[in-house]
C-alpha cells in the first residue's frame, strides 16, 4: 500500500501542489478504514477531521422528520468529505456513513488550520481547493433543487 506522501499527489484535490507543501500537509494525516455502515461522524459533533477518499463510498446524510435518514450526497475515490473543520463553530452539519468498505486519508483539522495560519501561501492553496469543492457541490445542489427529472415526460 502506498504511503500518504506517495498517495497525496495522485488525489485530484491536491493536484498542482508542490512536494514540500504536500509533505507539510501529510504531517497532519493518517490512513483510516471504515467498514460498511460505519459512521464517520454525526450532525452536531465536533468537526475536527477532513477526509479524502481513496477507495469506497461515503454517504452524506441528513435526518428528516418525515423521511428518516436521507442520503443527499456521496463521495467516492477522488472525492473529499467535510469542510466544517475549517470555520467556527467547527460542528458537522450532516451525518456521514460508509456505504461500503472505505479507505480514506484523515487530516486533523486543528493541525491543518495551524499550518494554514503559519504559512498563508499554503492556506491560500488549500482554501482554493476547498472553495472548488464547495462550488461544485453548490452548483450540483442548485441543479437538483429544480427537480429536473420530476417534470420531464
Amino acid at each position, binding site marked *: 500500500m502506498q504511503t500518504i506522501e506517495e498517495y497525496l499527489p495522485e488525489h485530484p484535490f491536491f493536484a498542482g501542489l508542490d512536494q514540500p507543501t504536500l509533505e507539510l500537509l501529510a504531517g497532519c494525516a493518517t490512513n483510516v478504514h471504515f467498514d460498511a455502515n460505519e459512521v464517520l461522524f454525526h450532525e452536531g459533533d465536533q468537526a475536527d477531521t477532513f477526509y479524502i477518499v481513496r477507495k469506497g*463510498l461515503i*454517504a452524506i446524510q441528513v435526518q428528516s422528520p418525515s423521511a428518516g435518514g*436521507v442520503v443527499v450526497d*456521496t463521495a*467516492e475515490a477522488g472525492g473529499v468529505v467535510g469542510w466544517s473543520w475549517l470555520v467556527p463553530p467547527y460542528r458537522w452539519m450532516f451525518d456521514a456513513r460508509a456505504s461500503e468498505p472505505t479507505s480514506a486519508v484523515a487530516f486533523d483539522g486543528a493541525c491543518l488550520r495551524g499550518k494554514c495560519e503559519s504559512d498563508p501561501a499554503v492556506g491560500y492553496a488549500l482554501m482554493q481547493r476547498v472553495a472548488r469543492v464547495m462550488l461544485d457541490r453548490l452548483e*450540483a445542489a442548485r441543479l437538483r433543487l429544480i427537480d429536473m*427529472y*420530476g417534470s420531464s*415526460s
Partner: protein
Amino acid sequence: MTSLAEHDHADAAAHALAAGDAMLPRPYRVVRTRQDTRDTVTLQLEPVDGVPLKFSAGQFTMLHAFGVGEVPISISGDPTKEGLLEHTIRNVGSVSGALVAAAPGTILAVRGPFGTGWDVSDGMGGDVVFITGGIGLAPLRPAILELLANREKYNRVALLYGARTPDDILFGDELRKWADLLGIVVEVTVDSGPHSWRGRVGLVTQLIPRIAFDPANTVALVCGPEVMMRACATALRGRGVPAASIRLSMERNMKCGVGLCGHCQLRELFICVDGPVLTYERLAPLMSRWEL
C-alpha cells in the same frame, strides 16, 4: 419560369401531400403492460392490420388515446427486432395518464414513426457514451439495444444514468444485465436516496470525469431534461469530445409530426422533422437563448 414564392408553395404542397399518410393514424392493440416505476409504464402494442412498424432508434410516434388526445412518445423497443411496438410512458398529464392506464386489449392509434435517429452505428470502431436522466433512458434504450446487437464492433461503451430516487430507476434488471454480461460500464446516480440506499447520490454530470474514453473517437448520445443535457454537453466538450460528436434528443411540443404546424419550432428548426436527435454543434447556439 416560376417565382421563389411559387417554389415555396409547390414545396409546401408536396410536403403536405407526402405528409398525408403520416397524418393517418393506424390502430394498435395493447398486448402487454409493465409497471416500470410508480408513475411509468411500458406498453407493448401490436398493429391491428398486422404490418409491423419499422423505425430507427431515437424516433418517436404520435400516440393517441381515443377520446382524450395525442402526444409524442419516443419508441423504447428494439429496432433490430420486428414485432411489437414498445413505448415507455410517464404519467404527467391527461393523455399520458390515459395511455399509462390502458389495459391489454385497449385500442390506441399510432402515427409515425417521425424524426431523426441516434445513428449509433456512427460510433462503430470507437467509443460510445450514453448519458441520460429520468425517463430519458427510454428513448436511448433502442440505441443501446442496437449497439448490443453488434457489441463487438464498438470499443468502450458506457452508460451514465441519473434518476430522481432509487425507486425511479428504469429498466433496473436490464441495467444489471448490460453491465454484467454485455461489457457496458453502467454508472447510476440519484438525486437523493433513503438511508438504505448504498449507491451514488449526485448529478449525472459528475460521472463524466470518472469514465474512460477517447474523446476524439467517441460518439456521445445524451437524452434527458434540457438543463441536464446542456450541462453534460459542456462537460463532454471539457473532456475534448467534438461538438459534432455529441447528439442530444430535444423535446418540444410536437403536434403534426411532419413539420407543418410549427408547434415544435426552435428558431429555424422543426424538432419533429429536423430532430429530435440533433448534434450539439447545431444546438449549442440555440440552447443558450432565453427566447427560444
